[in-house]
């Protein structure tokens, strides 16, 4: 075997690869993007646990002692404020201790303790919190506490209605169908640009605006039909079909805009794939979060697909209504319009 020839070929291929500006750019951008995602994600395991508490008699030394142990007790001025915080998912659990807690304990009576749990806390986590509170009571009183605990799930109580894995995967499937449509639309436009057919189209009475409308409608309709077909097959329209239709339409608009953007930077099928995969990896993170809850935190909301995925998840799996997902749909609309506008501007530059 002539290693000199082989190494010469390898050097040649490397040279050709990096002479191709697309491959060079995507290689570098890919590394940058994946590194950025890596660094955005938490760097350490969070070993602290924060809960909200309303306990008028709670002493600071105890709070500090618990904080040192990793249990952060964030005190609220009123039970109502505590409930609001749990309802808004600022805390998974809130504990409200009656003002006469210590007196009743001293009198060997059972003091009342209200435990508020956010509705998306899984049952196993609820058990963990119950255990934690018993331990906490032991620390406060120096002995097992006889308390009258009342547990209340704030929001829609989803106890006993765990989501089967396939339902958790549904938003992921929907997102992937839309993303594949992005690639399809982008490659179609890219082929038209490279093949010169777009030039031929634009020398007819057809205006650029008309072309964008046609492509936008085609892309949106194709994406919507595909994802709607999936939802119809799996029974995704059984709850609040109008919300699902709205969300999928907005999602289709979003990926159409993305398709325009990919087409504006891509030169051929390969480069469409390259740019498209970058986008897919990013947009696939929110559905992965539904699939594996707790994987990521609030930063995921900067990714536009979150609002589609969360809406589909909330409606299909929990029967959420307009009031629950209205803000999601508004955010999705804003992102979709922004993507479409950016896509049109970027692609239009290429038509000149």
């Amino acid at each position: 075997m002539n290693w000199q020839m082989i190494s010469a070929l390898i050097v040649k291929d490397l040279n050709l690869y990096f002479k191709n500006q697309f491959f060079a750019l995507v290689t570098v951008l890919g590394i940058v993007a994946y590194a950025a995602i890596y660094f955005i994600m938490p760097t350490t395991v969070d070993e602290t646990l924060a809960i909200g508490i309303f306990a008028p008699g709670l002493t600071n030394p105890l709070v500090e002692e618990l904080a040192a142990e990793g249990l952060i007790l964030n005190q609220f001025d009123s039970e109502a404020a505590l409930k609001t915080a749990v309802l808004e998912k600022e805390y998974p659990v809130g504990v409200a201790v009656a003002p006469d807690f210590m007196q009743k304990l001293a009198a060997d009576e059972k003091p009342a303790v209200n435990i508020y749990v956010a509705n998306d806390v899984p049952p196993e986590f609820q058990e963990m919190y119950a255990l934690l509170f018993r331990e906490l009571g032991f620390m406060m009183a120096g002995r097992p506490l006889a308390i009258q605990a009342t547990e209340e799930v704030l929001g829609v109580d989803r106890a006993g209605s765990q989501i089967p894995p396939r339902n958790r995967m549904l938003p992921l499937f929907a997102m992937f169908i839309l993303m594949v449509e992005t690639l399809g639309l982008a490659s179609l436009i890219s082929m038209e640009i490279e093949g010169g057919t777009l030039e031929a189209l634009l020398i007819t009475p057809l205006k650029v605006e008309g072309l964008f409308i046609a492509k936008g409608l085609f892309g949106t309709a194709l994406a919507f039909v595909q994802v709607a077909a999936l939802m119809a097959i799996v029974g995704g329209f059984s709850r609040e079909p109008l919300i699902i239709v709205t969300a999928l339409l907005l999602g289709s608009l979003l990926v159409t805009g993305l398709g325009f953007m990919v087409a504006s930077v891509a030169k051929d099928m390969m480069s469409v794939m390259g740019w498209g995969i970058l986008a897919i990896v990013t947009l696939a993170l929110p559905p992965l979060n539904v699939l594996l809850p707790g994987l990521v935190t609030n930063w995921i909301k900067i990714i536009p697909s979150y609002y589609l995925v969360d809406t589909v998840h909330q409606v299909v799996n929990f029967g959420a209504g307009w009031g629950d997902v209205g803000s999601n749909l508004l955010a999705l609309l804003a992102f979709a319009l922004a993507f479409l506008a950016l896509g049109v501007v970027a692609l239009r530059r290429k038509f000149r």
Partner: protein
Amino acid sequence: MTDAIVAEGLTYSYGQLLAVDSISFNVAEGEILGFLGPNGAGKSTTVKMLTGQLQPKAGQATLLGLDVVKKPKKVQEHIGVCFELTNLYEQMSAAENLKLFARLFGVKNFDADALLKRVGLDGRGGDRVETYSKGMKQRLMVARSLVNTPRILFLDEPTEGLDPTSSAAIRRVILEERERGATIFLTTHDMVEADKLSDRVAFIDKGKIVALDTPHALKQRYGKRMIKAEIAKNGGLEYREIVLDRDETAADVAALFSDEKVITLHSEEATLEDIFMQITGRGLV
């Protein structure tokens, strides 16, 4: 005769490179103008400005009385463009390609088969374009440029690299279109084709029009008419050239026949290529 195309001081540059340098010309309705020049001379850029694909940096182009910059879509309703490079939908059939463009032009009762027959593609309309030869694709390109029965036809190197059958078919269509009354702007660097087809020719070099007239007038102005004789001499063949239109021409011809044994005699005139070289100092390639 009114002018179908009027260009006044058309100028275009790509960055620092001046591609078209303030050119002006008119093309009358029903006329074929051959626009000749080597690669990179500015032919395609001129076509792009005339067809509304590029906005001139300076100057003005008017087609059928309409300003191309101000009303590009109105102009494009009445023109047909056959591009230099094939840009057909290869996965679609020839008929589908034509019907698509007929719809874009709003042509009613469009007969794709009739148009395909005109360019010699009858019976192949249902075949995918990707199965066509280069010549067939080019004929389809010409057919596509005719779907709207254009008043002005722009043909960019329509016969370049084609087989004689395809070239002849395209030339026949060009002449038929002129018969119909269409104005034809023929871009080529094939001087023979330009000579055969064009009413007038314009030479463009380095972005400037360096000559514009009928082929005949250009030959009169720049060419040397001569006769070329093949004579038998010393057991072999030799050649004599006698330039016409001189005072001593008649005497030279008489001497040729009296002193030499003339085998063949041909009249020679300058080709457009000769004239182009004479004017620009370089060839067309």
